[in-house]
Structure formats: structure tokens, C-alpha cells
């Protein structure tokens, strides 16, 4: 199998050279009162190993959920202030993800001229389940993509408040934006 335009190498990404973000929505009768959140971890690492040998390329991602930071909240009854954002992170740390580590390990990575398709397992709160995603590669060597998963598939009960009338949506989106830079082969 061809490695497409991605040069065989080990690429390492983290907050200094890539963006990893999480988007959450809201649901329930009082959804309008809540916020859609854009969250990013400040401590994470991804290793993308591109091999010339067929079936040997791999992706590994480790995220420290204790490093989450709320970038923005849209919608809602009133704008989120810095204290509100800190309070959301506190709730995530204390009640939801409890500062655990989230890991993804690929079981299959298929490379192509326009990017890659990956399959693997995501470990979240002690549960491991399959997750698949595709990443697109543009002419400038930027690797971007997004995927979604349902919290409940990993045994998590989506956070709810206001007597259950306002809930975080079960589906969560993860997006990545990384630059392969000069190591890209044209």
C-alpha cells in the first residue's frame, strides 16, 4: 500500500504544534438556557507513525483530562465569564472525567493521497470501545478532521442540571488540526 503524500516518519503532536478540541452541545426542554462548549486539553500527545510497510502505520493519542480548558461557550441565558468557565472545568474534573487519562490506539490506518482513515479503540473512564475517523490532508500539509462519539456508549451519563431539564448532549465531537510541515512529501 502506498503511503500517499505522507512521508514515512514518526510525527509527534501536542498543544505546541497542533489543535485538539472537543465540542459539546445541549439538549432538554431548557436547552436554550445552556451553552454549547468548545473545550481543549492543554496536556495531550499524539504519535503518528507512517510506515512504508503495508498495515504498519499507526496512531496513538493520550489526553490528560485534568488539563481541560473551556475556550468558549455559545448560546445560553447569559455569556460565560472566566469564573463560569473555571467552574465548568471543576465540574468535569470532580464529577465527570475525574482527571483520568483518555487513550486512543489505532488497530488500522489506511493512508491515501487525500489523508487517512483510522480505526481503533478509545479508552474512556475504564471502558474501551471502537472509534473510527478520517483525516484530510490539504496541499499545505495540514491534517484535519473530526469525529463524534456518544458518551453513553462509554458508560457515561451526560451531565444534567436544572432538575434534568438541561442536559449536555450525548454526542460529543472531537476535532484535530495538525501541520505535518516540512516532512510532507509532495
Amino acid at each position, binding site marked *: 500500500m502506498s503511503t500517499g503524500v505522507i512521508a514515512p516518519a514518526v510525527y509527534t503532536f501536542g498543544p505546541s504544534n497542533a489543535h485538539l478540541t472537543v465540542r459539546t452541545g445541549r439538549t432538554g426542554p431548557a436547552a*436554550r438556557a445552556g451553552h454549547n462548549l468548545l473545550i481543549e486539553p492543554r496536556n495531550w500527545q499524539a504519535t503518528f507513525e507512517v510506515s512504508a510497510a503495508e498495515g504498519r502505520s499507526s496512531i496513538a493519542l493520550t489526553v490528560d483530562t485534568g488539563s481541560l480548558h473551556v475556550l468558549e461557550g455559545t448560546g445560553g441565558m447569559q455569556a460565560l465569564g472566566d469564573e463560569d468557565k473555571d467552574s465548568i472545568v471543576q465540574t468535569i474534573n470532580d464529577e465527570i472525567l475525574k482527571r483520568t487519562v483518555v487513550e486512543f490506539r489505532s488497530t488500522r490506518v489506511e493512508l491515501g493521497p487525500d489523508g487517512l482513515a483510522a480505526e481503533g479503540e478509545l479508552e474512556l473512564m475504564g471502558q474501551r470501545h471502537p472509534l473510527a475517523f478520517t483525516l484530510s490532508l490539504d496541499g499545505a500539509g495540514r491534517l484535519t478532521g473530526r469525529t463524534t462519539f456518544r458518551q453513553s456508549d462509554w458508560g457515561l451519563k451526560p451531565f444534567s442540571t*436544572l432538575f434534568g431539564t438541561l442536559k449536555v448532549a450525548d454526542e460529543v465531537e472531537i476535532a484535530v488540526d495538525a501541520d505535518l510541515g516540512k516532512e510532507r512529501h509532495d
Partner: protein
Amino acid sequence: MIELDHQFTTGKPTDYNWDAILDLERLIPCVEGGRVIERIGDGSAKAEIKVKMGAMSMKFKGTVEVAERDDSTHRAVLRVKSREEGGQGYANADVTFALGDGGGTIHTAAQISGKAASMGEGVVVSVLGALIQDFTEKLAAI
């Protein structure tokens, strides 16, 4: 004006329920986030309620008074007048209790303004309905 009807069950005799709902220091904490700040006199109290919405919260402060009571039919109207702390909104309500053996009914007639009302009547009805439902469940243990 928003009007809502609920039922509650305590499994206790009418006289017990009657004394309980007229005792504001026992009743007000049955509202999630509610607390008595100060008794003003018999049948009246300064109180506040803090409604949590995840990271954010709204606080209303005001008075709760027993505006009407009929000891023979065990019917009472509690009048709530409150203002949003740090905002322009208010939340007022007449809450009518009609008691019987083992429980009773609650009729709520509420007027709400400000940020909470700006979310639309559907949101206010959902949240207020859920708050009162939670209140009725706590009344079971009063």
C-alpha cells in the same frame, strides 16, 4: 402568568401535613436551593432561592407569607415575592395548597421576568414544573 398543578403524597395525616406546610422553616428548604434568611413574624419569612444551572446560577431574594389560610378546609395560599439578585428580574407566585389525608394538591400561579423569562415561556414552564415536582418529592419526607 404561568399556572401549574401538581399533587403530592406524604402518607401522613392531614393535621400533620397542615402544620408542616404552614411552618415556613420546614417548608422553604424543601425547595431545592431555598433557605430562610429570617423569620419576619408568624406566617412570614425573608427567604432566597439559588437556582443552579450547571456552572452558573441565579439567586432570587424576597418574602414568603401565608396570605390565606382556612383551617377547616385545610387550604392555604403562600405568596412569594422575590427579585433577582444583581438583575432586573423578579419571580412572584401564589402557591395554593389543598390538603387531604396522606397528601394534597398544589396550584402555582407564577409571574417571572428578566433573564429567566427571556428564555421563553416553554423553558420557564419546564424548569418551574420540574422544580415543583422535585419540591413535591421532598414534601413526602417533611
